[in-house]
């Protein structure tokens, strides 16, 4: 299925979303190329998190199309979408607080039935996130924010996804962990997993992303290669405009 212009892995086209009367997205179109890291930037209430929810099927758009690997995701339930190969690192981690770290990581493999391979993958996670090894039996809720972020990422990887969507993976982390998380995203990506991430912290996200989109009150106002956007003053303007409105 390779042709001259490779089909994107994920594509949102002309998505319009509403919460009751209020319109959240206006003709939103985003594509994630295979093997790329794409980040969606924007201030508060710009519609970033809703974009995540659209991809995961937690919110249904009123119109527009969402395709993953050429097939439409519209009308599929969240579990069905996850089985297609999309894993999620939700906003604020959302670990299963009363389950152990081990159980949390294994929950990520819920859609898989190959027990032996799952056990191997768990070992692989412990080499990728060595700190979690000594925490396996601990309640997930008792970990620090940074450690929880590691668990959330390990959990997402356990489904052997083709793409991971991340909602503000650096939110609320200490600077030390922010660097670690970004480095890990890059590592995950180098292993062939495409990444779509939503971020408020533009300068950090643009460092690791291939492409970026800037969302302002539900409209894409800027997009392009991350390298180009990095020094684009309009990114900053879009943010300032957004925060003035908020």
């Amino acid at each position, binding site marked *: 299925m390779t042709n001259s212009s490779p089909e994107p892995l994920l594509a949102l086209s002309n998505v319009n979303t509403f919460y009751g009367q209020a319109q959240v997205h206006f003709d939103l179109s985003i594509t994630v190329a295979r093997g790329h890291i794409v980040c969606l930037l924007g201030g508060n209430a710009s519609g970033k998190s809703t974009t995540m929810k659209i991809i*995961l099927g937690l919110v249904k758009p009123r119109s527009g199309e969402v395709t993953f690997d050429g097939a439409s995701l519209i009308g599929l339930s969240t*579990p069905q979408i996850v089985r297609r190969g999309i894993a999620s690192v939700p906003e604020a981690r959302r*670990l*299963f607080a*009363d389950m152990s770290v081990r159980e949390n990581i294994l929950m990520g493999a819920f859609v898989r039935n190959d027990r032996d391979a799952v056990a191997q993958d768990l070992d692989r996670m412990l080499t990728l996130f060595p700190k979690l090894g000594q925490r396996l039996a601990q309640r997930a809720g008792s970990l620090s924010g940074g450690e929880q972020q590691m668990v959330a990422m390990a*959990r997402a990887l356990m489904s052997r996804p083709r793409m991971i969507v991340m909602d503000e993976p650096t939110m609320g982390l200490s600077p030390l962990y922010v660097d670690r998380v970004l480095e890990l995203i890059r590592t995950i990506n180098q292993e062939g997993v495409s990444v779509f991430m939503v971020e408020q912290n533009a300068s950090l996200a643009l460092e690791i992303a291939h492409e970026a989109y800037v969302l302002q009150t539900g409209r894409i106002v800027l997009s392009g290669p991350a390298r180009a956007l990095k020094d684009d003053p309009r990114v900053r303007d879009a943010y300032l405009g957004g925060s003035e409105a908020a």
Partner: protein
Amino acid sequence: MSSWLDYTINGLIVGNVYALVAVGLALIFGVSRLINFAQGSIYLVGAYIGWVAVVQLHTPLPLTIIVVAAAAALVGLIIERFGLRPLQNSVRIAPLLATIGISFVLDQLVMLTFSPNPRALPSQLPDVRFQLGGGTIGPLDLLIAGVGITSALLLFVFLRYSKLGWAVRAASQDRDAAMQMGVDVNRVNQAVFGIAAALGGVSGMLVGMYYNQIDTAMSLQATLKGVVAEVVGGAGNVPGAVIGSLLLGLVESYGVAVFGTSYRNLFAFLLLVVVLVLRPNGLFASARQAPPEPLTGTFIAPSRPVRIPRWALAVAAAGFAILPLFPVSFYVLQTLINAWLLGMLALSLTLVAGTIGQVSLGHAALLAIGAYTSALLSLALSVPVGLAVIGGGLMSAALGTLLISPSFRLRGHYVSIATLAIGEIVSLVILNWESVTRGPIGISGIPPLSLFGYDLISPSSVYWFSLAVIVVLALLQGRLLTSHLGRSFRAIRDDDIAARAYGLSLNRYKSLAFIFGGFAAGVSGGIAAHLYSYINHETFNTQQSILALTVVILGGLGNVVGAIVGSVALVGLPEVFRIAAEYRILIYGIVLLLLVRFRPQGLLGTI
């Protein structure tokens, strides 16, 4: 004279029975944040299926248990699929109301199929008792303990080691996150309802054998006890539910040992209220609090209410006022009098549940307080009846508010549980406080209604009197809703944290709502006492509380005119269609279910 060891054994056995109900409630609460008020009905169904199996099919005991568990699980699956799944995207109060409707329907179906008379459910075990220390223990005790412990172990293994069990635990901790791991929440719900129903059904059968008697009144009691045990152990906490159940069984058993059988339930509900007030998350809540109820969107959102012009209301009121001048039958007037009395209760509940958002399930207690006060004032102190009725209203307002006040700090479903328990406590105090209330004998010979020395005996005079009272109450409440106070009430309903941030004192406003509502309900109870001339602790029961709630939802929560229209409809229509009394409760249950599903804003719209 039984020994303390006997009471301990009895408490633990009964506790095991409660645990089978409470564990199911905890599982369901964990996954859906829902208190399943139909759990007791499944228990009832289990008891009757057990009866069919044992008495008619002569199944051996192991097969009986399997049949009951399977049949009850099937009922649970049907409830989940057709009663609750369609409500997934509705407001959070909707599934709660639906389970109440389902429990009415199931109880009535059982009653219609098997008649309300108690039946004997023989134990299939030999009737011997073994000496154990200073007490005795029988094979049935051992069976119940065995079933309880085995179920707990199986459940533990299921939750800890099976994939579906993991899904249940994950979904109960974070539903959305579980979905993002690929967990199909519908399947989890199915599993949980199936398990809960199987355990509940078996529990009902065991209790039937234990007391060698089953009847349809078992249902509500089982729900209440299960809820008490579950909340004591911490809502949604499965091991907590087991410990809470054993504790409840022991507290009841020792309470009975010291004070007598009629105090059994009083101890259960006092335990609940104490736990709710002191440790609302249960005795064993870990440092991490249970996830809070969402602040907004819990409640049926205000819709665009149907605007009825004032002149139309005035014409309607005048029409009803001149009705007795026409040759209408006594029967019509009697029906409308009942509607006005229910309407007063509905006005009270629509204010408390609809306007300020405290869904009370114990509203009949306010009727009882008003009725007893008014009856005793006129009988014992010879207070004129007109004043006595007002006294009943005032007493209901004061005492009702005082009793409810411990629940003011609670939210959402917890308010419903607390009010239900407080309602039961009032009824049990009436039963046990013989020196004042004459206990189970009740009060007879209550003088008829009178006003300024004139007895209101003729149906039309009673009709006018009750119509006048409800019109005055409705006008006052309508005025209240448009005032600043009414706005504050609604603000608290819609978002209590925001309301507090604007400086509204929740306790004060909730008290005001209950004072006003308590007065209306108390007056209704007072009038009823003088009409019936005889009342006892069962005259005003939970069924009436739920009927009032159905009326209020039918009319539109918070809607004053709706409350009255709803009363006339629910009291009047069954009369018009001459529906036999035993089918009425069934119809009320179905109405409640249909409303929640298709028209949660009611006929006239929520305000």
